[in-house]
C-alpha cells in the first residue's frame, strides 16, 4: 500500500472533527491579489494536517476554480482539473444532473448562484465549543478584512447531536479510505485515491490532476508527479470538496407523515407515522436499518452498518428499493450480479466522505408536530463531501441513484427525502405482500439554497499558490 503524506493532506479528509462541536464555513471572495496571497501564505501555515487530531481547533481552506485562477495558477495547470470543477455547479446541464431545477434552481440561491458574487474560497473553522468559536471567528474576520477579502456569506452550524435535522441518526455509514490508520469492513474500505489525488483509485489508476511545469516551481515546493512525468503535482494530497446548503422543512416532513398515516376515523397513528418516515429513510430514527430490523427501531442496531440488501431484502419488502439510504448507498443490490463481490466493487466506486454539518436550531419531531405554524427559523444541512472524482462519485450518486426516477427498476420515483420533484410531488412505492403501497404527491422537504465545487489542496500546494508572482 502506498504511504499517504498525512502531513500534507488537510485533516478533513481523515476526520470530520466530530469532537470540535462548533463550526463555521466562510464563503470568500478575494479583492486585491497581493494581500490575498499574503493572507494565504499565513493561513497555509496554520491549516490542520491529517497527521494531527486536534482537540481545541482546526482550520481548513478550499478554493474554487475562479479562486485558483484569481490567485494566478497557470492556465495549463487549471486545465488539469476535472471538467465539472472547472465548469462549476450551475451550468444548465449540471442543473439537470444535480436536480437543481424549479425550487432548487441556482437563480434563487443565496450563494454560488448566477445572481450571487463568484465565490473564490471556503474557510472552514472548527472549535471545541461556541465560546471559542466567537474568538476564532473574530480573529479570522479581522485578518480577512485586512487582506481585502470579502466574506460573501457565513455558513453557521448548530450542534444538534448525532442526528440530522429531520431527527434521524446521521453519519453512520462512511467509506474508510485506506492509509489513514483506521480499520473498516472490507465492503467500506476504499482505495485512498478515491478521496485524495496522487494515489491509486479503485481502478488502480491515478485520477487526473493539475500538473505544473517544473520551470514554474523552481523552489520545488510541490511534490513530484507520482504519474512518472517530470512535472510537479499541484493536485497531490488535495481533493475535491462539494458544498451544498440544503434547507430542510422539518415541520412539513413530520406533518406530512402524520397526515398520511391517519386512521380511517381520522385518528393520529404515531407508530404508522414513524414507520412511514423510516420507510422513506431506510433506517429508523434511532439508526437501526429496516433491512435487519423491519418492524421496529432497535437501540442495539443504532449504528449497525454490517448488512447488505440482496440476500433477504432484494425486493425491498423491508427497506424499500427507493428509500434514501438504499439509493445513496445501494451496497450489494445492483448489477453486476447483485449480492456478489462484483456488485460491492461497483458500489465502492461511488462513495463519498460526508463532512456536512447541521444548521438552525433543533426542532424535534414532537415539537414539529405540535407547532401550529412555522417558527420562522431556517434549518437544514450544510452538506459537504469529499471525492477525487466529482462526476463518478458525488454527481453519480445524485443523478444515477438519488434523483433517478428509474433507479433499480423503478418507474417514476425519486429519493423521497431529498429527490427533486415538480409541483405534482413525488411518488414512493413500498413493496409489501400481497400488494405494494404507493404514495403520490409527496411534497418537497429539502430545498437547495446554495452550493459550489471547491478544491481542498494539499498544504504544499497552498504554499506554492501563495508564492506565485
Amino acid at each position, binding site marked *: 500500500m502506498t504511504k499517504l503524506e498525512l502531513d500534507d493532506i488537510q485533516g478533513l479528509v481523515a476526520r470530520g472533527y466530530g469532537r470540535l462541536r462548533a463550526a463555521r464555513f466562510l464563503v470568500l471572495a478575494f479583492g486585491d491579489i497581493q494581500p490575498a496571497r499574503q493572507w494565504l501564505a499565513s493561513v497555509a501555515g496554520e491549516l490542520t494536517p491529517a497527521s494531527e487530531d486536534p482537540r481545541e481547533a482546526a482550520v481548513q481552506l478550499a478554493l474554487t476554480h475562479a479562486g485558483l485562477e484569481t490567485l494566478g495558477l497557470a492556465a495549463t495547470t487549471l486545465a488539469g482539473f476535472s471538467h465539472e470543477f472547472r*465548469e462549476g455547479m450551475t451550468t444548465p446541464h449540471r442543473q439537470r444532473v444535480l436536480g437543481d431545477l424549479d425550487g432548487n434552481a441556482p437563480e434563487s440561491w443565496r450563494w454560488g448562484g448566477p445572481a450571487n458574487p463568484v465565490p473564490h474560497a471556503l474557510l472552514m473553522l472548527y472549535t471545541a465549543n461556541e465560546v471559542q468559536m466567537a474568538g476564532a471567528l473574530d480573529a479570522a474576520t479581522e485578518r480577512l478584512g485586512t487582506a481585502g477579502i470579502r466574506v460573501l456569506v457565513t455558513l453557521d452550524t448548530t450542534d444538534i447531536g448525532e442526528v440530522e435535522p429531520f431527527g434521524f441518526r446521521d453519519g453512520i455509514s462512511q467509506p474508510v479510505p485506506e492509509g489513514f490508520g483506521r480499520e473498516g469492513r472490507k465492503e467500506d474500505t476504499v482505495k485512498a485515491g478515491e478521496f485524495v489525488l496522487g494515489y491509486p483509485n479503485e481502478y488502480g489508476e491515478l485520477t*487526473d490532476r493539475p500538473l505544473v511545469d517544473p520551470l514554474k516551481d523552481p523552489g520545488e515546493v510541490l511534490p513530484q508527479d507520482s504519474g512518472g512525468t517530470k512535472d510537479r503535482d499541484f493536485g497531490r494530497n488535495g481533493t475535491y470538496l462539494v458544498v451544498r446548503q440544503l434547507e430542510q422543512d422539518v415541520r412539513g416532513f413530520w406533518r406530512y407523515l402524520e397526515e398520511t398515516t391517519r386512521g380511517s376515523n381520522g385518528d393520529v397513528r404515531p407508530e404508522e407515522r414513524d414507520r412511514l418516515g423510516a420507510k422513506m429513510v431506510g433506517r429508523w430514527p434511532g439508526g437501526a436499518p429496516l433491512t435487519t430490523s423491519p418492524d421496529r427501531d432497535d437501540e442495539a442496531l443504532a449504528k449497525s452498518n454490517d448488512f447488505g440488501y440482496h440476500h433477504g431484502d432484494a425486493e425491498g419488502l423491508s427497506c424499500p428499493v427507493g428509500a434514501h439510504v438504499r439509493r445513496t448507498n445501494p451496497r450489494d443490490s445492483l448489477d453486476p450480479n447483485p449480492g456478489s463481490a462484483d456488485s460491492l466493487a461497483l458500489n465502492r466506486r461511488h462513495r463519498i466522505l460526508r463532512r456536512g454539518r447541521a444548521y438552525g436550531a433543533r426542532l424535534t419531531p414532537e415539537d414539529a408536530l405540535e407547532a401550529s405554524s412555522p417558527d420562522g427559523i431556517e434549518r437544514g444541512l450544510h452538506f459537504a463531501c469529499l471525492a477525487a472524482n466529482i462526476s463518478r462519485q458525488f454527481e*453519480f450518486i445524485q*443523478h444515477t441513484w438519488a434523483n433517478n426516477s*428509474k433507479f433499480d*427498476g423503478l418507474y417514476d420515483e425519486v429519493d423521497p427525502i431529498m429527490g427533486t420533484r415538480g409541483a405534482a410531488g413525488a411518488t414512493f412505492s413500498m413493496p409489501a405482500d*400481497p400488494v405494494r403501497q404507493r404514495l403520490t404527491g409527496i411534497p418537497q422537504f429539502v430545498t437547495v439554497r446554495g452550493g459550489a465545487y471547491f478544491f481542498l489542496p494539499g498544504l504544499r500546494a497552498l504554499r506554492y499558490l501563495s508564492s506565485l508572482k
Partner: protein
Amino acid sequence: MSSTHQEALTMIFPVSAGSEAALDDALATAGADAALGSMNFGKVDGLHFARFVVIPPAPGAGGTVQLFFLLDCDAPARTRLREIVRDGGAGLDAVLRWCDGYPAESERSAASRSDYLRRHIQPSAAVYVNTVGRTVKQIRAEATLRESVEGFLDRERDWSGKRPGEIRSAIQAFVAADGDLRWALLPAPQPSLSFRARRYLNLAFGIAIGMALVPVALVGAIPFAVQLRRLERSEPSPRVLPDDEHVRKLGEIEDLVSQNQFTAYGEIKPGRFRRYLAVGLLWAVNFGARHRFNHGNLAGVKTIHAARWVFLDGRKRMVFCSNYDGSLENYMDDFIDKVAWGLNAVFSNGAEYPRTNWLVRDGAKNELAFKSYIRAHQVPSPVWYSAYPNLTAINIENNAQVRAGLHGEMSEADAARWLRRL
C-alpha cells in the same frame, strides 16, 4: 401477418460543399421537435428511434461532410421509409436539400424522395436490438396496461388479507372488463416463422463456418498473437482531451428525458491487420447480438435499447451509435465495469483508444483516458427521436412480464412474485 422483428436502416448522404452551416441550421430547427415538428416521426407507427448526425470529413484532403440518417424500426423497413416520406416530407426537404443529388424543388414527390433515401442506404457492420420481436405498438400498449393496473391497485386500496391468486384474478377481471386493455389477456405476438427460420439458418451457417475455420485459427493463432502484441506495443495511444466547448454542446442535449443518444466515430488504425480484425469482430458482435444477446442484456449491460456499428469511407472509419438509459457517466461506467473486454476488442482497432493488452485487457479499464476518448470522439445528434423516451429497457421488460402474467395458470407463490412487478 407481418413479422414483429426489428430492422436498422442507415442512410448516408454527402453534404453539398458550402452548405454545412445551412444544414446545421436546418437540423437545429427540425431537432427542436423531432416527434411532432416538420419531421413528424411521432406519426410513423413502428419507428423506435431516429436520428440525424453530421460526421466531419476524415483528416486530409478530399473528404466531404456526411449526413447520417439512422432508423430503428419494426419490419418491414421499406414501409417505415414510405411512412416517413409521407408524414415528414417537408422536414426531409428542409434538411436533405443541402445534400448532393437531392431532387430539385420541382421534382420532389413521395416517389423521388423515397428513391433518394433508398439509394443512400448503407449496410451496418453490426446491429443490436434490446429485445428482438418487441414492436413499438407492444411497448406502448404494455406501458399503458401497467399504468392502468397500478391505478386499479391504488383505487382498490385494501388488499390486505387477500391471497395473491385472488388479487391476480381481480386484476384479470379488471383488464377483461376494459375494452381498451382486453388484448393483454393474450400472449404477445412473436416474430414470424420465416424470420425465425432465417435466424436458425444463419446460426447453423455461422457455426458451420466457425468449425471450418478451426484449422485456420489453429495455424494462425501464433502469428496473429505475435502481430497483435507487436502492434499493441508500438501503436501510439495518445491521451486525447475533449474540448470544453465540445463537451458543453454534448451536455446541452443530454439528460432531458430518461433515455439518451450516443454517436461516436473514429478512424481505424492503419494497416490491414486492424481493418480485418475490426471486420471479423463486428461480424462476431452481429452474430452474438442475433443469437445470444437478443433479450434485454448485451453481455451484462441492460440499459441499451439499440446499437449499431457502421463502416465508413471504405472501412477506414467506423461509426457507433446507441440509444441507452440514464446518464453518460453511468453508461461509460457500465462499459468499464461490465463489458470492458468486449469494448476493448472492438474499439481498440480504432485510433486513439487507450492501450490494450492481449486485445481485451486494460483499454477501457484506464477509466479517465477511456472517458476522455469517448467524449472526444462523440458527436451530437441534432435531431433525435425516441418513441418512448421515458421508458427504460428494464421498465419495458417488466411491463412485458406484467402482461405475460395475465394469462395461464399460476401457483400462489408465482402469483405473489408476479404481484411484486407492480
